[in-house]
């Protein structure tokens, strides 16, 4: 019991601390690839620090939903984060839910954020909510197929078991079923975290925004909470992807010197995935909104292929 609480606290701190860093690294790498200097990898921390000290403007039209949504998003994202294996294969809150719970907790946050977008009464909030919910709905079946493939391989939807099964077979991710599932999940990750070619996180034009339009009216500490939750969600989904497929360096438990090695591996793998994301973001242009379902249909097809190829191997 005590160990669980300590593990949870350690993973909580890691989630809170690492998430802005991943965002910062991706931004800086992207800037460098585009031959810009970029703001430096610690800029998100400075942004959050600044936002948390500011005052905020609450729209007159908004109800308590507007104030509650950032908290629901923040807490549900963190809870999802505690259910995934980060450093140790044993997820601290694994008893409370597996991969399905993670997806549905992220869905809970999105549900409230979409409500908040519509709560402000402006056109852009509604526009963002509508698009965000549409894209995530379209992403869901592909995600579930890929997860089913992984879960069937491990015989469980518990992430502790999934990661545990992966540890035994380090090179299993080279199996066709796993590679298809990985590709499907990677596409879903891009859609869910609002990255190019689905959404542009650094856009300044409201009409092309998706996630940013939804949170347009937030300011000050609430904006910081929402943004922080978004970067934690990105970290959670990235970690989910890398630890389900590349279990290198995943420790059996959180305790002892091994944890440091585990953190080292985690950071290395995250850095690698970030590079891949940066590359995809830089060489692609943002898609038209109505082309996104086609991209997600590709993900769904890959997921189906993953399932079918579990027959073969």
């Amino acid at each position: 019991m005590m160990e669980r609480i300590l593990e949870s606290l350690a993973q909580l701190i890691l989630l809170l601390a690492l998430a802005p860093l991943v965002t910062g690294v991706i931004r800086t790498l992207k800037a460098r690839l585009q031959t810009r200097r970029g703001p430096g990898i610690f800029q998100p921390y400075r942004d959050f620090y600044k936002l948390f000290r500011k005052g905020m403007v609450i729209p007159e039209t908004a109800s308590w939903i507007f104030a509650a949504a950032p908290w629901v998003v923040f807490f549900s994202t963190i809870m999802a984060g505690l259910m995934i294996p980060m450093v140790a294969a044993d997820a601290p809150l694994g008893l409370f839910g597996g991969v399905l719970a993670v997806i549905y907790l992220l869905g809970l946050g999105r549900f409230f954020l979409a409500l908040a977008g519509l709560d402000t009464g402006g056109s852009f909030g509604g526009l963002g909510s509508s698009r965000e919910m549409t894209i995530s709905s379209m992403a869901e079946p592909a995600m579930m197929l890929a997860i089913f493939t992984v879960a069937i391989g491990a015989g469980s939807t518990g992430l502790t078991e999934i990661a545990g099964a992966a540890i035994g077979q380090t090179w299993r991710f080279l199996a066709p079923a796993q590679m298809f599932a990985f590709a499907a999940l990677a596409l879903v990750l891009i859609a869910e975290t609002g990255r190019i070619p689905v959404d542009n996180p650094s856009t300044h034009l409201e009409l092309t925004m998706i996630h940013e339009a939804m949170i347009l009216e937030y300011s000050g500490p609430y904006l910081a909470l929402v943004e922080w939750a978004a970067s934690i969600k990105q970290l959670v989904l990235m970690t989910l992807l890398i630890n389900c497929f590349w279990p290198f360096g995943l420790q059996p438990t959180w305790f002892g010197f091994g944890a440091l090695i585990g953190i080292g591996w985690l950071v290395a793998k995250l850095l690698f995935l970030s590079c891949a994301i940066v590359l995809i973001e830089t060489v692609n242009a943002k898609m038209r909104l109505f082309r996104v379902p086609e991209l997600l249909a590709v993900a769904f097809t890959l997921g189906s292929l993953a399932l079918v190829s579990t027959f073969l191997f």
Partner: protein
Amino acid sequence: MISGLFLSGIIVWLAGALACLALWRKPANARLVACGAGLAGSLLDLAGSSAALFNSSPAVIGLPFGNPIFTWTIRIDPLSAYFNVTLAVLAAAVSLYSFGYLREMEGRRNLGAFGFFYNLLLMSLALVFTASNVFFFLVAWEVMALSAFCLVSFEHEKQEARSAGVLFLVMSHAGTGLLLIAFLMLASVGDTLEFSSFHLLASAMSPVWQGAVFLLFLFGFGVKAGIVPVHIWLPDAHPVAPSNVSALMSGIVIKTGIYGMARVFFDFYGSPPIWMGTVVLALGVVSALLGVLYALMEHDLKRLLAWHSIENIGIILMGFGAALMFRALGQPSLAALALIAGLYHTFNHATFKGLLFLGAGSVVQSTHTRNMEKMGGLIRLMPVTAICFLVGSVAIAGLPPLNGFVSEWLTYQALLAGFGTTQSLTRLMFPIAGSLLALTAALAATCFVKAFAIPFLALPRSEQASDAKEASPTMLAGMAVLAVGCVALGLGATWLVRVFDPITQQTLGVNASSAMIQARGVALSPGTLHGGTISTIGMALLFVLAGAAFALPLVLRWRRRSTKGPSWDCGLPGLTADNEYTATAFSKPLRLIFSALYRPHREIQAEYEVSPYYPSAIRFESEIEPTFEKHLYEPLRQWIMAAARRMRAIQAGSINAYLAYIFITLILLLLFGVRP
């Protein structure tokens, strides 16, 4: 004890119905008697049937005035008791709500008649779930259908209520016809009309008869449950009824179809061939997906909820279908898991859909419109209704930690476990059904963002909406009961699964709950080998702790630094309700993505005086094509009309011809009767 409580519930309902008839001319008294009897009967029924839940030997009650062909025997086994508990919880909340809801109708409508049919409906529902032989069942079934019909077309001065009622009646009777044939086929094999002797009987028939009986039952009960493609009455009938009746219709009347299927598929059939499970699973997936897709396009709040009933019936059938397949594959413990998922969702749907219809009823009563585009901002004027509706929305969207999440999670687990049970291609059904369930659930979440946000958030879009008033205390109490039910069924999952043990023991011969309750009742597991666990109570506890420890103090601190200001909205001054996103706009991306299904049609006419860039008025019209009505039912209707026209020839009006018909029929029957 059980029989006494149950019988007194029936008697209270019957007495309430008759008393309401007697109070025809005293609306105030009729209202009190109608709701009071409804509530009292429900509480008695709840007490009786919850005691019967764990009773392994069924309580049998013989009513007097029997006749030679059949007896009026009530038999409460665990399955009947479970559906009765569902009925009683919902009916108690709805009756409580009706105290306030019906007050507005006093003097304007005949509340005596309403009370009569209302109590009759509740009584017949309890009897449908407990009747122990075919005739009694069909009598209760018909009383239920007729009283439901009278309640649906209660506001009969409206054309839409009349035509929806007639459609309901026609389809309901077509379904009853199928049931009658199926029951007679069973009876001819078993030489009996008692349900208790039908146990495993269907599996003793030849494969062709088994299949025929199965399909007759599936569609006979399917009409009532509202599965695609025999669903078309449902989105018409549920919205036009008074909202308390809509809650009963969606919450429990359609569940009689589910009860019938559970009874037939798991009690009458032993080990059905695998194609039956496949058919049920496929129908479930199609119903779930089409239900939610049509709901997304709906801007009539109550029609939207009615479409979601079709979706949820689909989810229930996915559980049942998987259970049938597992049974055919010789996996009784997995079948128990899938059956539990379906039955759990049945109860859950009764609570959250009942809650949502009651919430919609309050909104409609206070804004006088069912059109979401004319509502808005109600969260300020109707705060308690808004919270209740939000709880229902989160629950139906299947989001943790409420009850919809638990039953959907169990369905996923059953489907996931299915993949390993067979080596044939059939196993691909399971993950594909699972991923389509994920699509359904995500679309449902999208739909309920719309269904909550458009009526309740932002600015009122019409004068009626800005004059709305909070519902009366009894209406709020009725909704609160169901909202608490949604939370309790979500958090108390590990407690509730024990209830299913007698049912699975009786039908499948296994007890599932001991494997499903883990970590001293904190976590729920599917009971399969590695399974995975969830703990809704743990999640809820963490949410509350985190909220109390961090959110509350910080909110109080930040409040001092926050100011109210107009929405920025890209710098445009003067935000009005015209700036808001509408329900039509919200669902536009999905309308375009699924345009192959919807075949949307829109018409825009702009009037202008000088230049088309400065229109003085714009008229916008948008509609989607009702596929089933147009391509399935319209040809069918035309065919029936043509056949009827041709048959008119034999109905010449001559009494001699009619006598000849009767004579010929008699001879044919005699020939048929005495054949060797």
